[in-house]
């Protein structure tokens, strides 16, 4: 390769199946252009996202982790996103304490009707991740 490729951050996106996952679908069928950096993983609820999912994603080489669920009050399971908010707050604090850039973990509320918002969230996240460069603090060295 003669030309060095520009750095593209890898994002693992955990999306709630009741809202954000459908929101990302809507962004697609509406033909909204947004960066292809995010790999979506559908989960049953934002409240089902274990902190271990996030740490394991970083461990396996993610540069950023995006979590997205239903707006407060709209959870299919009534309270899942309230519980997620608490857990994610704690893991964010812990990452910051260890010295990992807290910007590498992002959470958003995206409903099934907000395709445009999902595209914007990914666009912003990629733009914020690029200056941080590759994540090598939690990444496993498998060489």
């Amino acid at each position, binding site marked *: 390769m003669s030309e060095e490729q520009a750095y593209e951050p890898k994002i693992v996106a955990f999306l709630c199946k009741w809202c954000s996952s459908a929101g990302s679908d809507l962004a697609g069928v509406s033909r909204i252009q947004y960066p292809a950096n995010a790999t979506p993983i559908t989960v049953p609820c934002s409240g089902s996202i274990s902190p271990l999912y996030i740490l394991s994603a970083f*461990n396996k080489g993610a540069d950023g982790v995006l979590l997205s669920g239903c707006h407060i009050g709209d959870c299919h399971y009534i309270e899942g996103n309230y519980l997620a*908010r608490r857990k994610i*707050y704690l893991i964010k604090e812990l990452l910051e304490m260890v*010295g990992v850039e807290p910007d590498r973990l992002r959470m958003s509320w995206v409903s099934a009707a907000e395709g445009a918002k999902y595209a914007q969230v990914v666009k912003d996240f990629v733009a914020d991740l690029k200056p941080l460069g590759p994540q090598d603090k939690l990444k*496993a060295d498998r060489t």
Partner: protein
Amino acid sequence: MIDVQSIRDAARDLLTRGEVRAVIGYRRGSRGMLAEPVTITDPEQADELVWDATCFHNLALYLVEDRKALAHAQRTPTLPIAIIAKGCDARAIVVLMQEHYFKRDEVYIIGVSCEGGGVLVEYKLARLLNGAQALSAVFDGDELVVTTAAGEVRLPASEVMADRCLECREPFPKEHNVAFGEDKTGRQLAAPFTALGRFEALSAVDRWAFWRRQFERCIRCFACRSVCPMCYCDECVVDSITFPVAPDTTAEEKANRIRWIERSAVRSENITYHMTRAMHLAGRCIDCGECERVCPVNIPLRLLNNKMELEARERFGYEPGASIGGPSLVASFRDDDPGQFIR
């Protein structure tokens, strides 16, 4: 100061009257002044029990071990088990009961107040004794009385006490069946989260440099997990060796089990292990400091757990080990939980 004879009498009476099936306590270890955990079932053994500044161990761990042994033997005992508990141990027992690990009437808590003391740290004591061998160490008011071959030495308690004891606000076991010693709840020999505050003042770059060095040293002996009364899971997510293998488990299942992280003792895996543990202990860790004490390479693990405790207290008004019936930290929420970080 608590008369150790009163603890022995209480244990003997409980066993003689057949009110409990065993008493978990401390006895003199085989190495110098240190106490070691013991389970006694015979009233005669009650005189072995000791209570001094070397009773480091969080005995709640042995309630968990007892529970596991009973489950393994498929026995349901009719009598409760008695346990000698300091303030922190009693909080650990409360958390275990809050999580329905056992019921309140299945355990008889003999509470002992640390009063103005706590437990000592061996290296701090050794430094002050200039190489002299301590034979016994007991707190008396705000002094530590140490006996050496050369005679008695009185040292200021604050110079030999463990950091977590200095920061402790609840040296008295609130949850108890019977308690010895003065209730000094609210005493504070040092501001809480002193070490954490000092650490958090560092820049992100320095914090990472610190943890990077610490986690490169971790040898993954899992002593922190073994000693923790809250780490009672039969199968640990970070340690695939505990994957339950039944006769009908196929080779494919064994090969394809989820490995969130690897078991190798390298920095990236160590840091994921310790952060996962800190998250699993959020709202459950009662700051007994045992993980830090047993760490063979002296990683300051209390910092991680203290951080979670601090956030729980300041943002969510949650105090671990405060009530048996209350909700747990991560299974409850409030409308005004912080959410500014969410886009």
